[in-house]
């Protein structure tokens, strides 16, 4: 459907934009500390996207997942704790 390069960019943008949207929501419900933590966990993912995935999506996909996913997963817990704290 898309070329490999375009598809890689779409993936990366979705991963970053939707997590950032969550961070924005956390600010909206006044969980600023958790929002900052979440952003700090998104930054290494963007770094790995630039270092590995976008440079050679076919060769580096597995290496990217292994490096970046722990940060995404920790971001989920940070978000969960923020929601629990806010009583959402």
């Amino acid at each position, binding site marked *: 459907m898309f070329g*490999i390069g375009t598809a890689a960019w779409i*993936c990366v943008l979705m991963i970053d934009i939707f997590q950032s949207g969550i961070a924005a929501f956390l600010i909206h419900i006044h969980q600023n500390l958790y929002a900052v933590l979440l952003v700090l966990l998104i930054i290494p993912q963007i770094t790995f996207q630039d270092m590995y995935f976008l440079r050679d999506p076919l060769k580096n996909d*597995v290496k990217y997942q292994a490096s970046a*996913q722990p940060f995404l997963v920790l971001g989920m817990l940070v*978000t969960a*704790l923020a929601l*629990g704290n806010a009583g*959402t």
Partner: protein
Amino acid sequence: MPELTPSSSLPESSRSVTPETETPETSLETNTVASAVAKTDDRSAKARQLLGMKGAQSGETSIWKIRLQLMKPITWIPLIWGVVCGAASSGNYTWTLENTLISAACMLLAGPLLTGYTQTLNDFYDREIDAINEPYRPIPSGIISLPQVVAQILVLLVSGIGIAFVLDQWADHSFPIITILALGGSFLAYIYSAPPLKLKQNGWLGNYALGASYIALPWCTGHALFGDLNWTIVLLTLFYSLAGLGIAVVNDFKSVEAIAS
């Protein structure tokens, strides 16, 4: 996320068995160091097989190991994590023995039972394609019979729904939300793998189904177990699942790679 784990948690991408290539050729090695390395490789290949990971070894004969392999334990981890997130976001989780046991039951529901069901079901419906592309996999290789596979799918599904019902009773839900989530997730797993819908053949929709199954479903389940599930949580986790969709598409690059090579 879906594949929120390091190497591969998606039904499509986590192909578990690699034939000969991973088997060390010890007979040609006289060097002891090399054979020690080979032995370690051999052991880790066996572990990888049991976990349902790529780069595993074939030739397993124990039916229970085959069953476990079909359930792809490595893919349970993100779902179990999702339950933890749901318990945390409920804001009501306290570290009592009772809560710990109840959350363990919820993890059993999300991981071994319903993800195990999903993975076995997926392999069942993939058996004809696998017979051509990956004939060494458990079902096409004939190492486990079809009635045995169907029995496994049904046992996992029924126990999963059963535990969901018990959890609803524990939480005093007047509306059995956990049972409904379990039924909904099981149905989603069915239309993902089975004809006529086979959502996984539709790139975006199939991958969003995966993303939501790995993030929104276990999260909402954990939240409903310890708190009140509301639309904010449902919509927010479905939004988060869109990042999971991105991850699921990244996992598809492996298949592109395989086709290319």
